[in-house]
């Protein structure tokens, strides 16, 4: 039994060792993986992106004709003496294996690592029938001894610390282990497992690939256990999902260019074993499992998740995974892919819990060796979880209130009153409330609401004179102020307007604008998202002017999410596209249609600043994400290097509210990097992130100030006060 999601979450966030260990793991993996990938790119003279899309096309082509490839594989494997069985459900797979064992009198099975065997909970089920399954991969064995599950697809015991390993090995083998002597603990596995190999009636392995042209399996391992498990016992079971099929050996080689480099950052794993058919005098049973895979294939949004080659890279860059680990971020399959495929292998109930932990930063997609659009797939699963009632009530009510402009504005007004009282009574510190918050929320302060909104700031002043001619000189621009920035970061709205005006354009404020729908879309509440999007389309659809906004995330929302929201409503989609086509992120504007000349904001000062690029646009490689380059170009001031600049800050929409420990864990990582940069000012390009970073820095007493880059730039305008 897997514990309830909340219980797993609490256990993870209360383990003081987990975060630092996973952080060290993620950082070292990233460095060695990047080095491997860049060597691969040099050797092949092709980009990682080209290589992964090539192999993704192989996988897609195979999946489209999966039944033909299964038939080809079966014919060739059977001709080589293997028995091939296609099974639909987990139960059928367990029953088949148990049946063969019973018929042969087998009561002990040695296992090499197989995620499909985890998926069908084989060990547990076989034990019910009196058959013992022993894991022989070291990590899996340690988990079995500790009665735990893998927390990572490739590094199953990454969550265990060596002191704990010494303890469980000591219990199993009846002697003491020095936790600092890892080689001695590893060596004990060789002796500790030997008797099981010799006594087992069957060996079980997974398959990294099933090669149709010869009916072969290919298995990639490092320890040598898989070769033993297939050499000593007389029966060899292979458990594999049907998505592991590939047409040819040449495709297998392409998979190997990507798999070990992405998994363990090795050029090639120690053993790449290819087996065709039963060995002389032995039996080979190849179980091809569906268990929801054909449903995935028939789902347009999800089908590409079947390309997955189980490298675990998506977990290795996931900021939330780093905080909670795989027992919480996933179900049996962990990491971003686990948030997607669990729905199909185990059901929406098991998939729903961790959905809210994804911060939608998009890092997983950038390293996926088969280019699975994981962030978008997770949003789709989140919608299904929401629609089937698996979402907290408070979240639904919050989004409904947000979607209702009158309620939203009332709340803001109340907040503004509270803020001015607090301001008058000295209850604010650095513009944040000095409130006694519960411990789990204390890492972030609640921002006071400024007395004037962004629109009010703009209306209360004269238009900014142009500083230089720009391609937009003389043109008229609509400003989309964004709901958050309008009320909580009004200076950024005003600064955006000033910068547009600095290029000689006139700024208009379309009335009745509110929210593009992003918070609801992110939370999977598409009905609320549609309501908000429609209201925004109405507000921005009254003119045909170009639209500029300081809110990077909303640009992505309008261009990427709106077409999905209105997929089945052509009329709304047309209106949405008409607005989205006219929308520019401020940074894109200042480099493009409203381009300000180089150095036009150069004040001859050199400020100590660093830039946190909004993760979502940075991971999509949007040019506008490169605010550090823009600011340097306009001001002539060089940024300080910021490590992990593209890693999420932990805001993640509702994530930092629903899972505050995740928001804090990611923020701490970010603030450590910011402190190490030595900057006095941190700039960023998304209002939500700016507010989150600022509230965290205020609560933790960090010395730097946090600004939206528009504020940083506007302060350098010649007429700025």
């Amino acid at each position, binding site marked *: 039994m897997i514990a309830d999601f909340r219980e797993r979450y609490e256990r993870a966030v209360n383990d003081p060792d987990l975060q630092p*260990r996973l952080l060290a*793991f993620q950082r070292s993996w990233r460095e060695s993986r990047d080095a491997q990938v860049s060597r691969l790119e040099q*050797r092949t003279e092709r980009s990682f992106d080209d290589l992964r899309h090539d192999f993704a096309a192989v996988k897609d082509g195979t999946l489209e004709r999966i039944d033909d490839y299964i038939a080809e594989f079966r014919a060739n494997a059977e001709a*080589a003496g293997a028995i091939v069985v296609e099974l639909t459900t987990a139960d059928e797979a367990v029953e088949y294996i148990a049946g063969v064992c019973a018929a042969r009198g087998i009561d002990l099975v040695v296992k090499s690592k197989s995620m499909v065997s985890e998926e069908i909970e084989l060990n547990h089920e076989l034990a019910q029938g009196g058959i013992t399954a022993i894991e*022989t*991969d*070291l*990590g899996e064995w*340690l988990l079995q001894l500790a009665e735990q599950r893998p927390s990572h697809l490739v*590094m*199953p*015991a*990454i969550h*265990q*610390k*060596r002191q704990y*390993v010494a303890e469980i090995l000591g219990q199993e083998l009846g002697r003491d282990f020095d936790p600092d002597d*890892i*080689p001695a*603990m*590893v*060596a004990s*596995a*060789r002796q500790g*497992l*030997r008797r099981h190999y*010799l006594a087992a009636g069957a060996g079980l392995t997974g398959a990294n690939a099933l090669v149709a042209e*010869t009916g*072969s399996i290919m298995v990639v391992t*490092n*320890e*040598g*256990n898989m*070769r*033993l498990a*297939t*050499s*000593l016992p007389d029966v060899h079971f292979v458990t594999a999902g049907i998505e592991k099929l590939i047409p*040819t*050996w*040449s495709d*297998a*080689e392409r998979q*190997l*260019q990507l798999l070990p480099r992405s998994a*363990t950052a*090795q*050029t*090639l*794993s*120690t*053993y*790449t*074993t*290819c*087996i*065709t*058919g039963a*060995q*002389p005098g032995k039996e080979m049973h190849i179980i091809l499992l569906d268990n929801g895979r054909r449903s995935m294939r028939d789902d347009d949004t999800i089908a590409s998740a079947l390309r997955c080659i189980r490298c675990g890279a998506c977990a290795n860059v996931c900021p939330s995974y780093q905080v909670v680990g795989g027992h919480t971020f996933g179900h049996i399959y962990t990491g971003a892919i686990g948030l997607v495929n669990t729905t199909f292998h185990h059901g929406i109930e098991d998939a729903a819990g961790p959905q809210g932990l994804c911060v939608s930063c998009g890092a997983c997609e950038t390293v996926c060796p088969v280019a699975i659009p994981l962030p978008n797939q997770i949003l789709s699963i989140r919608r299904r979880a929401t629609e089937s009632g698996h979402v907290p009530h408070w979240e639904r009510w919050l989004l409904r209130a947000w979607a209702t402009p009158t309620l939203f504005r009332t709340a803001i007004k109340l907040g503004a009153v509270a803020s001015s009282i607090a301001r008058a009574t000295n209850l604010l510190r650095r513009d944040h409330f000095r409130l006694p918050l519960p411990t789990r929320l204390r890492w972030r302060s609640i921002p006071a609401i400024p007395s004037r909104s962004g629109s009010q700031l703009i209306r209360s002043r004269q238009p900014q004179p142009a500083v230089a001619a720009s391609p937009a000189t003389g043109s008229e621009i609509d400003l989309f102020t964004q709901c958050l920035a309008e009320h909580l970061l009004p200076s950024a709205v005003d600064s955006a307007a000033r910068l547009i005006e600095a290029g000689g354009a006139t700024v208009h404020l379309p009335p009745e604008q509110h929210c593009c729908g992003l918070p609801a879309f992110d939370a999977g509440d598409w009905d609320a998202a549609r309501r908000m999007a429609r209201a925004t389309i109405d507000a921005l659809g009254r003119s045909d002017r170009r639209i500029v906004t300081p809110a990077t995330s909303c640009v992505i929302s309008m261009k990427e999410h709106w077409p999905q929201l209105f997929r089945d409503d052509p009329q709304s989609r047309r209106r949405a596209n008409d607005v989205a086509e006219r929308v520019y992120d401020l940074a894109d504007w200042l480099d493009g249609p409203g381009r300000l000349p180089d150095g036009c904001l150069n004040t001859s000062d050199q400020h100590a600043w660093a830039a946190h690029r909004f993760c979502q646009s940075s991971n999509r490689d949007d040019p506008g994400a490169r605010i550090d380059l823009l600011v340097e170009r306009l001001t002539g001031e060089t940024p300080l290097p910021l490590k992990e600049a593209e890693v999420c800050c932990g805001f993640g929409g509702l994530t930092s509210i629903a899972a505050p420990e995740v928001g804090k864990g990611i923020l701490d990582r970010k603030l450590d990097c910011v402190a190490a940069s030595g900057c006095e000012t941190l700039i960023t390009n998304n209002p939500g992130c700016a507010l989150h970073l600022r509230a965290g820095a205020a609560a933790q007493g960090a010395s730097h100030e946090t600004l939206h880059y528009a504020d940083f730039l506007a302060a350098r305008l010649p007429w700025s006060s």
Partner: protein
Amino acid sequence: MITASDRGTQFAEALHGAQGEIAWFDSWDDIWDFAASLSDDTPVVSPAAHQFLQRGDLPDADDPLRSIADRPVGVTVAALGIAETGSLLLIERAPIDRAVSLLTRHLVIAVGQDDLLDELADGFRWLAQQPRAAAYATFVTGPSRTADIERSLTIGVQGPSRLTAAVLT
């Protein structure tokens, strides 16, 4: 044009990267002398290697794995080597063929210099043309290893803890 010696250098670099060792020999006799010098115990040899060496202990036909388990030195022969990855391709259809490579402590794998290919893709092309070879074929890249305890790389788990490619020039 990649020369044989470039290929040898690439192979050596890649194998070193995978914690393997490499040595060059002029004859099978030299390989035997090298293997025999590694331990006081007589090297065990795979049936394929025995054809060339004509000496050394062979695994027992009735219980091949148990008969040579944990012996200090083993010698076997690779069908080919891959310069790109430092891998050696072992073709081992029956358990008796693979006993030596599975369970000895220091594994010496002989490979002809002329059998070194440039890339893994060449190895798979070769394999695709030899359906019988793929019955049980393994690209071995260095000694066995794990990083399952706190991601600390440890050499030598179920397989050999040392691996030397003996390149026959």
